[in-house]
């Protein structure tokens, strides 16, 4: 038995779900951002695996682009966390509920 495409895709799906669980359950904004990174990386695995399967480089390039975007997203996310700290807001997303209804 050799490593086939479904292996990678399944792994990617599992990682995706783990990351999603993190976003769904954690209350610390930092952990949520980290969980989002896990999700992004899992998608990258799918992209690269399909790229290998198709035999083109498009998937890999897209994965690189996703990485670059993810970096920018982290900057913005962390910037928000810093700003919230400066506003002496409690770092707990369940406390972010002045907007509701």
């Amino acid at each position, binding site marked *: 038995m050799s490593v086939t495409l479904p292996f990678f895709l399944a792994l990617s799906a599992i990682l995706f779900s783990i990351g*999603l669980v993190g*976003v*769904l359950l*954690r209350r610390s904004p930092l952990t949520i951002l980290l969980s989002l990174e896990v999700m992004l990386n899992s998608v990258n695995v799918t992209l690269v695996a399909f790229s290998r399967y198709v035999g083109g480089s498009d998937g890999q390039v897209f994965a690189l682009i996703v990485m670059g975007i993810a970096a920018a997203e982290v900057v913005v996310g962390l910037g928000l966390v810093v700003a919230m700290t400066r506003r002496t807001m409690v770092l707990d*997303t369940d406390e*972010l*509920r*002045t*907007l*509701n209804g």
Partner: protein
Amino acid sequence: MTELVWITLVLPLIGVAVLAILGMKLPPRAAGWFASLIMLAAFACAAIATAILATRPAEERQVVQVAWTWLSAGNFSVGLDLWFDELTAVMLLVITGVGFLIHVYSIGYMKDDPQSRRFMAYLNLFVFSMLVLVLSANLVLLLAGWGLVGLSSYLLIGFWHNKPKAIKAAKKAFIMNAIGDVGLALGIFLLFVDLGTVSYTGIFAEAGRLSETQASVACLLLLVGAVAKSAQLPLHTWLPDAMEGPTPISALIHAATMVTAGVYLIARMNPLFIHAPKVLDLIVIIGVVGLIMSGLIAIVQTDIKRIIAFSTMSQIAYMFVGVGLTAYWAGIFHLFTHAFFKALLFLGAGLVIHALNGEQDIRNMGGLRKQLPKIYFCMMIAAFALAGIFPFSGGFSKDAILSAGLNVDTTIGWIAYIGGLLGALLTGIYTFRLIFMVFHRRASPYAERVIPESIKHHGEGPSTMLWPVYILAIGAAFAGLLQIPGLTHVVTSWLEPIAPDGMVEATVGQDWLTTLIGTTIGLIGIGIAYHLYARESTSPELIRNGRGRLIHRALERRLYWDDLYEWSFEKPVQWASSFLNRDVDRTAFRWAPLDGLGQLTAFFGRSFAIIENGIVRMYALVLALGIAGMILFLLVRGA
């Protein structure tokens, strides 16, 4: 000629604009006269345009002008299309003519009201809306006018918004009219779906393509609109309540013009209605039941304006009978004469109320004949016209309707005839009950106390209020002479072209027979009224405590229509809403059906708020469930 019609249409709009922009800077009297002169100019234009129209040969009297296309897609096009023909001309003259007189009357009536300028602006707005309604050459524009008319009526009924009853009445009128608007809109939509057009030309040309069912459903929906606007059964309960508004409004909107829009609509759409004979029969039945019922109710009312309101309802029911029998000319003729005598009646009542410092209960009047002779004289003319006594105007037009029933000679025709004659009896009774109780009977202590003071102050009323009454009195007395059976036939020959499929016209013999019977019955009614109400001794107490007291009470409660609506709509919703009772904005709409409906939806709305709790994890959870659900859904469908 079309230019003149355009000017007629635009003038009131200019009035509104000027009053809205400059209104507060003008002195109130100047604003009033400005609005009135605008109306006079509009009337002049309309009259000249009508005269020019009359000089044309009959087949060229129908003018359609597309001024501007707003939306067009394929066969369908809507825009500012103008339609001017004989029927429009009549409506135009009534609206601008009576409108002018009532504008003048309002100057006097509203002179102490700080908001009189706003009132004048609303009046002009109303006239504009009404003109849009009758001048439109397509149903969509008609609907726009229809809605605008309802809106201005709402504004004017609720004009005194520190009066809670007025506000409630305004809302009631608004909602009843909204039901009608929805019916009308659905009808238009259905016609559009069936025929692909909403212009009169298109509909009249294609109406033959409709099956009887299609035509009936469309006409039925249009009828819902007509019934609501014209305060006919079963959407009539708003009209008596609307009397909370200022009296000129009652005269102009709730007697002479707006409430006749339903009659206009049916007469206008006659090439369509002709394909729905069952609906026409229904219109007659609604009319007959309505005229008898409202006549009965009018007999026991004690508020002077409400009596006249019920009589309006009853007279419009006559018009419904007329157009339902396809005697369109008779219906419109009655509309025309009714505009005079009913406006006269209202304005006269307004003067009486004015003289009595705002008292409206006829039991607190009496004996005014001597103190207010001019008003008495005019009111008598109006009452004779209303009771259909020969040779006053109402007699000719009402008898024209009834003799049409005789001429048709079907079951429906006989129902109309007999019912109409019964109604004539009731009309005689309630009209002269009013006259006798207000002017003849011994004066009530209240009237005795108030009247001399009032006369000393301003006579029978300011001249701006009296003159319109005189002019209307002339109309009410002589307008009927336009169509004396066998002698003159101005109305029939003028209106003949509007009904391409022909209309019912009684023979001269039938006409005179009906006039004879009608006048006799009217006089009998007057006699009964005299017997019951003219003297103090035989007061209505006898009836109230006698064998008929149940009927009397039922009539006093207006045959429980309002209670029916209250119990079938208001109460359940009130219960439901107190069950679901929450913090929905209460000040917005206090009329229970809307309030309750709002609360009911708010109940559902709140269930969203449970999810929308502000916690981002929760949002992500919904998102995740959405993803899972979407994949599952597509996999199941795709497989």
